[in-house]
């Protein structure tokens, strides 16, 4: 069957210099297109620059998000960000859609920072793995981090309760 609606979303995290990241998220569907750009500085992981640029709005419902995006400057990527971002960007005078995209962009920075730790753990304590519904010709997932290391990693405040795999350990 031919599709009659598509949504595509690409988020990239780029290191501009040591401790300074640019997160760019472009979301497109048949009705709406927006690009979110956040510059975030470590070690506090606070937003230094935020741009919310509506590229296409078929329904003509989007308001100018520039004044709201300026309020994101100073918001930190970390605990409490969901409530703050929804309060600043979302609501009846804002854009709930943009708020969710900003939060997703912020979460991708967290993922980005976590990758080296997971990569190290997989190298140190990776065990061969074949999922039941993987293959039969090509196996996408060949190694997973073994349970003892997962328990150990769950002690890391950044990973603890970050997802179901690191919860209740």
């Amino acid at each position, binding site marked *: 069957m031919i599709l*009659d609606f598509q949504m595509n*979303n*690409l988020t990239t*995290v780029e290191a501009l210099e040591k401790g300074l990241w640019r997160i760019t998220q472009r979301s497109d569907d048949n009705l709406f297109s927006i690009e979110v750009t956040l510059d975030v500085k470590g070690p506090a992981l606070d937003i230094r620059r935020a741009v919310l640029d509506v590229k296409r709005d078929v329904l*003509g419902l989007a308001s100018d998000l520039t004044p709201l995006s300026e309020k994101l400057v100073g918001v930190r990527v970390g605990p409490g960000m969901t409530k703050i971002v929804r309060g600043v960007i979302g609501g009846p005078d804002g854009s709930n859609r943009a708020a969710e995209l900003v939060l997703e962009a912020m979460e991708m920075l967290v993922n980005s920072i976590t990758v080296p730790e997971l990569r190290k753990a997989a190298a140190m304590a990776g065990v061969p793995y074949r999922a039941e519904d993987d293959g039969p010709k090509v196996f996408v997932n060949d190694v997973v981090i073994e349970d003892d290391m997962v328990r150990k990693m769950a002690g890391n405040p950044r990973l603890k309760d970050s997802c*179901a795999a690191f919860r209740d350990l």
Partner: protein
Amino acid sequence: MLEYSRCKSVGVQRQGEDRRVVSGVLEDELYAMACEISVDWPSLTIESVQTRMKRFTTGRCPRAKDVFTRAEGWKIDSELDGKIKKEIGRYGCRHMAILMVDCCRALARAELARELKAALENTPDLDRRSFVEDFHQRYPDLRGYLQLR
């Protein structure tokens, strides 16, 4: 230098009068997964959920699969995001939950886009705000859900 990249792609199709099907894929450095959801229309009820965890980090991740079908029987309304994030994200996989949220919202937006396209063919200078209001009156459960702006 690029440090992380996530791509999500969602497609919606209409299968006859009373069924809508959405398929979604998510791929980034850490995870790769896919889901397909069929929804009864216009009751907006999720009929079936089919998922595949393709690439993940721990042996605990694929156990989440048992949780994903909890969404079968749920309705698309303003409560759905919270239910998916709480039930499926918390006890299954938060990345699959995000993909499922995107899929369900795209499915509902597709209906509006489909109707808008048809309406514009008949009335090129259609008042789009009135059109959206009319759509919400016909599908009141979608009023707080679509996030059109």
